[in-house]
């Protein structure tokens, strides 16, 4: 798994690639929470288009990011969900609580 950040006007986009599982979800969580709690970027966007698999610990990291954003009145956005990622969010009934878009253009235009 690899994660990197791009910064645009009042927005940070995290580009994630590979699988998010127990081996690396703490890294995702740490990057997300740092961006939210320390930098307080108004809009945090997760590019998951190159993420093939997310396990429950990865979902938990996304939920933590979402809750941290809500606590600070920031926006947390996901885009590019793979079938597997979409399935786990549906199974956990969390798909509706996230702001989800198909691609980056839609996410940034929102």
């Amino acid at each position: 798994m690899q994660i990197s950040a791009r910064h645009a006007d009042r927005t940070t986009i995290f580009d994630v690639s590979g699988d998010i599982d127990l081996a690396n979800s703490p890294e995702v969580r740490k990057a997300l929470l740092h961006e939210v709690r320390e930098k307080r970027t108004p809009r945090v966007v997760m590019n998951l288009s190159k993420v093939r698999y997310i396990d429950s610990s990865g979902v938990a990291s996304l939920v933590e990011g979402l809750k941290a954003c809500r606590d600070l009145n920031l926006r947390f956005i996901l885009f590019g969900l793979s079938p597997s990622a979409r399935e786990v969010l549906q199974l956990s009934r969390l798909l509706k609580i996230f702001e989800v878009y198909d691609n980056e253009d839609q996410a940034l235009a929102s």
Partner: protein
Amino acid sequence: MKTKPSRQPDGNGLPALRDGLLLKLQLHSDPKLLSVVRGALERLTEVLGFSASDCRSVTRAVDEALTNIMRHCYGGRLDQPIEVCCKRLPRRPSSHEGLEILLSDRGPAVDPAKLRGRRLDEIKPGGLGLHFIRQSMDTVEYQRGRGINRFRMVKYLPQSESPKC
């Protein structure tokens, strides 16, 4: 990690033993090995003829169960033994053909009350793994014996899909 394919190829050249054994993996409780097991399960379920969605479901269930063993049974220690045993279940009058996956570990006994998973009406991180497993598999059972935890999962093939090996 050790891989133990069976030694008696069937008529298709695919491994199969009389007891239905398809694949046995012995691994340490290192999360870095989860992706290796997922790769094996993805291919195995494909070969058996499961739909793409069911391949993902079975792989997810095994991954989540292994994650639980690594986190809760072994407390994050990386060098503890885990065995993954996959068997083909023959068609019976009461059930279709299917895939049985048995995970074994030597961690402390699991409290069956903790295997129920949490309710989903609360938005909070954690506690989703068991829910994913129960949603994905047709049978989920836990047994403890001789110091070993055995977590058994079964996924049946739909009636219209005949197994390819």
